[in-house]
């Protein structure tokens, strides 16, 4: 009996959290034009979320590409279709692995950093102090971070995909002996601009989702040390689930 009551309670909390996040998103979007009048803040946040994530994105991209090359070659070799490795790797990276893995890494690195930073500002009353000085914390703190995340995500995704393809090429052509000419020409003839656009659109949507969740969790964190910690964990969990759900919906929409 208690279990059912808890379930209903959780369900109600979930619905109100969804509503809260949506209203928060609308407020953020409303502040975007004015936030651009302070470009320094936006650039600093773009640096924090994007440039500082570059190292992890590039390393992971390289290794994912190399694994795809290795596994793909092994599987395709059973059907004598090694020349299709380029096509499969490019399409897989462009449409699915690139956006999703980059978003998950972003949520883990930049998302937690955003949530922790804003949560700590909430816990040490900095946000309240700002409000008392008639400085709008939404404008000064939340919106630049949100914009920084949204702008950084597509850039990180395409860098991830490009380095991933380099990794595939490294393993397949250099190491396993797939013909370089057929590798690239097969890829060129089967991959179109709409596949690239699909990946970029997905990364933009994921960017908005991850940044929104991170900023919202930090902004509405309970003002204790435990609350900040919980906000950080929830950022990663909720981001991951939302990314994968959105991924399915976007794929179904764009196919």
């Amino acid at each position, binding site marked *: 009996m208690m279990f059912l009551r808890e379930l209903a309670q959780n369900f109600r909390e979930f619905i109100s959290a969804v509503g809260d996040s949506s209203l928060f998103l609308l407020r953020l979007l409303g502040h975007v034009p004015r936030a651009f009048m302070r470009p320094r803040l936006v650039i600093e946040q773009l640096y924090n979320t994007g440039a500082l994530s570059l190292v992890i994105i590039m390393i992971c991209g390289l290794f994912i590409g190399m694994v795809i090359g290795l596994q793909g070659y092994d599987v395709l070799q059973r059907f004598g279709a090694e020349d299709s490795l380029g096509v499969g790797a490019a399409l897989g990276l462009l449409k699915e692995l690139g956006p999703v893995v980059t978003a998950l890494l972003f949520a883990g690195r930049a998302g937690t950093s955003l949530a922790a930073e804003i949560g700590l500002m909430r816990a040490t009353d900095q946000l309240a102090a700002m409000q008392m000085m008639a400085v709008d914390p939404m404008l000064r703190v939340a919106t630049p971070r949100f914009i920084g995340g949204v702008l950084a995500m597509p850039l990180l995704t395409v860098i991830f995909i490009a380095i991933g393809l380099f990794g595939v090429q490294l393993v397949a052509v250099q190491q396993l002996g797939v013909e370089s000419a057929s590798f*690239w020409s097969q890829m*060129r003839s089967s991959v*179109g601009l709409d596949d690239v656009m699909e990946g970029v659109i997905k990364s933009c949507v994921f960017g908005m989702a991850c940044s929104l969740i991170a900023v919202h969790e930090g902004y509405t964190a309970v003002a204790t040390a435990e609350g900040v910690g919980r906000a950080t964990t929830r950022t990663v969990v909720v981001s991951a689930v939302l990314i994968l759900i959105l991924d399915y919906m976007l794929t179904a929409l764009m196919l």
Partner: protein
Amino acid sequence: MRATRTIEMSTGLFVLLGFAALFFLVTQITNRELSADGSGYEVEARFENVGSLKVGAAVSMAGVTVGRVKSIKFDQSVYKAVVKMRINSSYDKIPSDSDASIMTSGLLGGQYVGITAGGAEEYLKQGSQIALVQDALVLENLINQLAASFSKKGADDSSTAAPPKPEEKK
């Protein structure tokens, strides 16, 4: 306080790197024809049946892609399909009596238009029409033809074996 100069430099480099990666993806791994689509001349051909030919299918001669199918429409006055193709402008010496046939790439592949060169001295140019065409093979017609030839062969055998005597049949 971090040095603002470092932040701006790093962010700038990051954004440039992102655009370079996007540029690489768009130009290096997508099909090249997208960039040079404006040039070329248009020819058309009329078919009784285009099968499953699609817009954007290749037009090839001797196995080399020389153009793309630009549009497929139905002409109600002659009840034929009108296929407009854009041929790359570098292939401007295709004889005007060449024939166009709809072929299938491999056993299960997509269909494309194959042009076999003729022998005329005039060449195809913008707006020319390819007169000699061969329609797509429709599997059902082939099977009907096969079945008809089998039954015809059976009828021939029975007629040569025993010529019917009209008196006996009554």
